[in-house]
């Protein structure tokens, strides 16, 4: 007997078995899941939670919260009074300070679909960011980092269009 018909029969039987097994397993899974189905209960607007942090940090967080202006994001290093070995550095570290004067993080396009999503966090921060984006559009990257295109034109001196 030739090899191909034998292999074809094996594969045919295996494929049919896979179909039966998959459908059977799915039905069994649904039966099993249905037994544990719970009724959805309405959720409250706020939840009380518990925060566990090392004590020194908790004290500093409280003082930071008091100092903080609404909506402002604080990136202050957290240091213990007893000078621990841990010194978290919350500012980014650049090996070659090349991005120092570079553009701030921004999406590529300003989103036209912004309104469709809820919870626009810190609205007050968004306006200056958009203004900054329009300025950054024309920034040039030079050996000294990012520079404004306007400044560059001025420094070139008396170029006039007739």
């Amino acid at each position, binding site marked *: 007997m030739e090899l191909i018909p034998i292999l074809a029969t094996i594969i045919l039987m295996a494929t049919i078995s*896979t179909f039966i097994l998959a459908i059977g397993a799915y039905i069994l899974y649904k039966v099993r*899941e249905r037994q544990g189905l719970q009724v959805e209960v309405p959720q409250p607007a706020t939840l009380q939670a518990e925060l566990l942090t090392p004590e020194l940090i908790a004290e500093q967080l409280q003082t930071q919260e008091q100092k903080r202006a609404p909506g402002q994001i604080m990136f202050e290093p957290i240091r213990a009074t007893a*000078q621990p070995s841990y010194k*978290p550095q919350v500012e980014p570290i650049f090996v070659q300070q090349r991005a120092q004067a570079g553009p701030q993080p921004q999406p590529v396009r300003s989103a036209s679909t912004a309104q469709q999503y809820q919870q626009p966090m810190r609205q007050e921060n968004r306006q200056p960011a958009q203004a900054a984006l329009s300025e950054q559009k024309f920034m040039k990257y030079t050996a000294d980092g990012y520079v404004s295109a306007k400044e560059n034109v001025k420094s070139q001196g008396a170029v006039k269009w007739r």
Partner: protein
Amino acid sequence: MNLKQNIRKTSITLTNTQTSKAMKEDRSKVLIKRIMNMGLISFALILLIYFTLPYTILSFGSLLEYATLVSLFIFLIVLLFRYFSILVLAYLYLNNYTFNKKEGFYPFVSIIVPVYNEGKVIEQSIRSLLSLDYSNYEIIIVNDGSTDDTYEVAKQMVGYKKGKYGDVKVSVINKPNGGKAKALNAGISFSKAEIVLCMDGDSQLSEDCIRTAVRHFVDPSIGAVAGNVKVQNRRKFFTDLQALEYVEGLNMARAAQSFMRLVNIIPGPVGLFRRKAVEDAGYYSSDTFAEDADLTLKILAHGWKIFYEPRAISYTEAPEKLHQLLKQRYRWTRGILQAIRKHKRLLINPTINFGDTFVLWTMFYEALIWPTMNIFSNLFFIFAALFYGFSSLIFFWWAGLALLDMSTALYCIAVEKEEIRLIPYAIIYRMFFVLTIDICKAMSTVEEFLGFEMQWGKLERIGLKPISE
């Protein structure tokens, strides 16, 4: 010098509001409406064929044969196009990745670890996080109302723990159960870092995960970086097949998408986000069962770019039993379809954000069109073999697919430096493993379309060994 390790317990208030359009709708009315619409459309199509067929040269039997052959040909072309486009784009991405060095950016990172009944694995997960090759990070564990000993285990971990380059701050937020999305939101809100890393409680990160992923954020247009998920619990039939699937089916596709900076899903086990991008997107939502896909689509919709970092590896525990695997895939499929439906405006209108439209169509194709085509092609070959005696057709179909899968697996395994012993699994991968998954996907799609209720399932965990073992 030792730091005094007193733990302070404070009470905090978390926002729990979640608007969900689907919840407000009357389910039974929606179900009846959809069934009626489907019935009417099907009836109209049958009438159309019935009245127009006498004007053609085809009979009913030949129409069926002709339609099947054309469908199969289209399926074959699409299959080959999909394979080769993914491989070419992934190659271009990896080529670019290899020669484009980016180093030297080390911002402060918060690792958010949401946990729900992960008592068996949480300690190992946190211990793996303390050995990361990065100096500037903290760990925030969010206990989402676990009913086992997760909270007790997590509480033991609070404090300044010894990391690779110094002490690492470990905090715990203990909140009532509300789902993974809300747990992640609580962690992100509490964090002060510009970059947050969201992961699963049962996953373990590779040592250079943060260091390799975070450097892409030096580009201000990058809103998030997707990591590389690998199966840890191997050496079992199902988990080995999933390991191959992750390498060949998911990671290679992600590399191809990354070439266009349009990764469609940032995986739950490892994803780094720029805080501003998450805020723009409105944080994680709980109205879909694939909160990671939903957030990714929202970030893309706001114009941010998403990159894939193959060296930011997260080892995760894959389901070992068939019913657990079906449970996982059921949730993924319905979650992705919910996310697509939520963003349907972008799906049908490419002028709003072309990138997002492209991503949504890709997801729609992978979640719905591809599984349907695969099931129907297999049904056709069974039908042809049983009723017309063309049993050799199914053999050649299987041999072609197996050859294609084996060559792809060889390429992917070589690129990712994975285990060579996974390659033989490619012989049965497409025909049996993918077919089972596709049947589950098709059933889930029908249920999602008909609006059946579903709940978050919790996969049983057995606990992972440390990744060094």
